[in-house]
């Protein structure tokens, strides 16, 4: 749902912008905080950054997007992580540079036991889900769905390469077809064969079997992120890229 309320840090969210709720509860997403010591009968919700106020009437949720912020892990996010080193029972993996390593249990893979667990080397990439990310504690990730016990597409990423995009763009990519104003992958999918794994941490893994096609996919992703292409421009660039491949 689009709104046009742009807020600055510390400005109170106007009451007219708060979604109606029957239960009287409201979910606060990123970049918003609630001041409990505010006088009674007034809800004081303050943004911690400047941005466009986003709301979801169905989920009764309110949040603010920050376009350039460093990725902050949150439970359930899918990420492309890079193994840095391993200890007896865990792999220490990097989600974003210059932040403490996240932990990945050596048995946190589908059907893994002491004998069948995948052997990962430093530098290997995995597609994983954030399992725990509390304030002041280590971030944990896993390559197995907690509900089904299945991999669900997660696990080690073999071959291909990884491209860096902004975390905000990665979020758009994950909104799914038709949403997020991004059509490159769908358009390209009609012409080329490739696999992608989008990590919320701004890392996108691409594999197509051919160097040329992989480079084409990666360049379109990075170009769209940095150039801010509109839908028409994306279509044009896809056509050009397909011709070149």
């Amino acid at each position, binding site marked *: 749902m689009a709104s046009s309320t742009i807020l600055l840090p*510390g400005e109170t969210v106007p009451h007219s912008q708060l979604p109606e709720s029957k239960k009287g509860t409201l979910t606060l997403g990123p970049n918003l905080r609630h001041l409990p010591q505010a006088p009674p009968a007034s809800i004081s919700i303050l943004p911690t950054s*400047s941005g466009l106020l986003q709301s979801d009437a169905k989920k009764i949720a309110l949040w603010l997007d920050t376009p*350039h912020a460093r990725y902050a892990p949150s439970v359930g996010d899918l990420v492309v992580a890079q193994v840095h080193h391993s200890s007896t029972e865990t792999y220490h993996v990097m989600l974003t540079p210059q932040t403490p390593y996240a932990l990945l249990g050596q048995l946190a893979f589908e059907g893994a036991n002491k004998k069948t667990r995948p052997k990962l080397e430093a530098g290997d990439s995995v597609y994983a889900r954030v399992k725990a990310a509390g304030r002041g504690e280590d971030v944990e990730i896993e390559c197995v769905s907690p509900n089904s016990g299945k991999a669900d597409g997660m696990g080690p990423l073999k071959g291909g390469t990884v491209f860096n995009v902004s975390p905000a763009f990665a979020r758009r990519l994950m909104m799914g077809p038709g949403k997020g104003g991004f059509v490159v992958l769908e358009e390209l999918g009609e012409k080329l064969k490739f696999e992608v794994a989008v990590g919320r941490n701004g890392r996108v893994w691409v594999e197509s079997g051919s160097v040329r096609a992989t480079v084409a996919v990666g360049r379109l992703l990075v170009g769209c992120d940095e150039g801010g292409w509109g839908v028409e421009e994306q279509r044009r660039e896809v056509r050009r890229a397909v011709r070149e491949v």
Partner: protein
Amino acid sequence: MSPSLALHPLVRADGSATFTSNLYTVLAAANGPVEVSRRDELPEEAAIEVNIRPSSGVGGPRERWMESVITSLLRSLLLVHLHPRMLVQVTLQITAEPSIKLKRGVADVALLPTLANAAFAALVDGGLPLERTMVAALAVVREGEVVVEPTEKDLVGCQSVHAMAYSMKGEMLLTESTGRFDLELWEDVSERLRETTMAAMAKAGEDEGMEGGAEKGEPWLRHALKENVVKANAWREGG
């Protein structure tokens, strides 16, 4: 002339901003939250590291002093408790300065508002959690007159220089002065600076109602931040 602010001029740093006042241009970069060295780690909040780099040569005691002033200002802005055992790193690079050589003490105070505004904008751009919005401004007293946002010429031979920062709610966050002045004059200066800084953050439509809103300048901070948000959300229009 109202100051100019450009957001996200750099690629590698998480957040960045270029701020130009009548006197200086400062390029700021904010990185964070990033890993902190064991020595600087704070168990319950984020450590703040400010680095000021002069336009030529390496920094000395003057820069260290300005760093400490800016660090304590940023501590009052950032919600440091949200990122314990992490680091917020702010680098401030001076890229243009007045061509007239100013007295040391005067130059140090005169630079502070530009540094503060650039640092704040870089933190906003980097999406770091902030408690409040602020604007800093400079004033000099010259022949008994208060001159807000002075030019190079105003600084030469002035009686006193005052750098102050205010939050959107009018709380004073920073005050550094040098020169000869009394309390009455200081109060006068602080009131003038409060008006100037509040005008930079004023909501559209609010400032017209205020008396003399136009001459206090346009809400440049709000404009620049708004523009940045609009640009980042352009894709939502489906265009």
